[in-house]
């Protein structure tokens, strides 16, 4: 699936540098940023927040059958990461041995190419993670 250019563009702050937001009323952090705080609704006050990219693995899998476009990347680890600031996020785990990819393992964010729209289209960049030794 080719993601539209404006769609890629508007998510650059989130995907390049983990920009989300935090509700000042209930102090819950959100990634990606939410328009409405689901806990406080109208009483919520959301402000921008940049996440550190540090966290730990909450659950993981190794994907052997990738979607079209990620054939060269497969097999790859995919995990739900619990960021140190609270929210959970889905991301690939790169360059980490099977033995190290486990629930509770500490990870840090890395900047990687996510996919390419063929040879002539845009290159999508974003966050992936790596297990810290």
């Amino acid at each position, binding site marked *: 699936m080719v993601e539209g250019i404006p769609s890629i563009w508007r998510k*650059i702050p989130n995907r*390049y*540098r983990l920009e989300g937001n935090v509700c000042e009323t209930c102090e819950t952090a959100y990634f990606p940023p939410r328009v409405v705080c689901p806990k406080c609704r109208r009483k919520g006050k959301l402000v921008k927040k940049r996440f550190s990219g540090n966290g730990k693995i909450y659950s993981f899998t190794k994907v052997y059958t990738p979607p079209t476009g990620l054939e*060269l990347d497969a097999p790859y680890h995919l995990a739900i990461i619990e960021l140190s600031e609270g929210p959970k996020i889905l991301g690939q785990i*790169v*360059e980490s041995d099977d033995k190290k990819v486990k629930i509770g393992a500490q990870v840090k964010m*890395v*900047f990687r190419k996510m996919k390419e729209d063929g040879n002539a289209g845009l290159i999508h*960049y974003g966050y992936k993670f790596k297990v810290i030794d």
Partner: protein
Amino acid sequence: MIGIVSYGAYIPKYRIKTEKIAEVWGEDSDRITKGLGIIEKSVPNVDEDASTLAVEAARIALKRADIDPQEIDAIFVGSESHPYAVKPTSTIVAEAIGATPHMTAADLEFACKAGTAGIQICLGLVKSGMARYGVAIGSDTSQGRPGDALEYSASAGAGAYIIGQKNLVAEINGTYSFTTDTPDFWRRPGQDYPSHGGRFTGEPAYFKHVGSAARGMMERMNTSIEDYDYFVFHQPNAKFPLRLAKKMGIPKEKVTPGLLTPYIGNTYSGAIMVALSNVLDQAKPGARILVSSFGSGAGSDAFDITVTDRIEEVRNRGTKVKEFIDNKEYLSYGKYVKHRRKLKM
């Protein structure tokens, strides 16, 4: 005072040994390993390119610096493997480190010396007061034609330098460049791999320019070889910088700390930037360094650098070059072909 506020280098995790490449082409691997002085070279992952390497190096530089990315007024990324022919790498880096939007950015290309060209531009902008901080990055995921001599050396790496006037880890005492039009190496538009002049890349190109820039720098600073603790020369292979040092009468031990080609290959625009980072990772305060880069086509930028006391405070904040060199995983030639996307899908 003007100089290096912070620095960061990045080398991908993967390596391929010279012997694995030699084996594919039926070459004598001992002869090639000895001839080039390259044991193995770095290989990027499938999802890495010059911009991702540049971002990683810049993030390490920021980690070592006590500055707000919003104070960065200029970013220059030098590369001969920019992911796009048209569309800047520098804007990708600027967004990823949070330096946008009140700043300027541009991509540079001058074969292997585009990174040092960026340092010179940043020096000019900072000294003139046009920028508070400037970031110069050299980053490449270079490719050699399969079977060509360059396939043994063309590798991947990046180095990033934050140039400013406060809290310096190293002062830049002066810079001098030596430039001519010398067609030793080139790549035409639409070509996947570069072409080169074989032995012509040696004397009239590398040795003439790197040597002239180094000597010119010393003349201008009124210094001699004894005044420097380290010499960092561009390193397309391990032979050239050592031969140049010998010719100039520089003791080998002043060159080897900044000679990484044997372990990572030639990271092109990243080469001199990563090599200097490795020297900064170990140099004592007060150490003086002479750097001379080389870009085919051809030119050399020399820098006279003095390390400050602050180096010891900041260098442990980021991953060191040695750690990147040691953290490695070897690839077969087949996997290497996949990593370099030489496979047509």
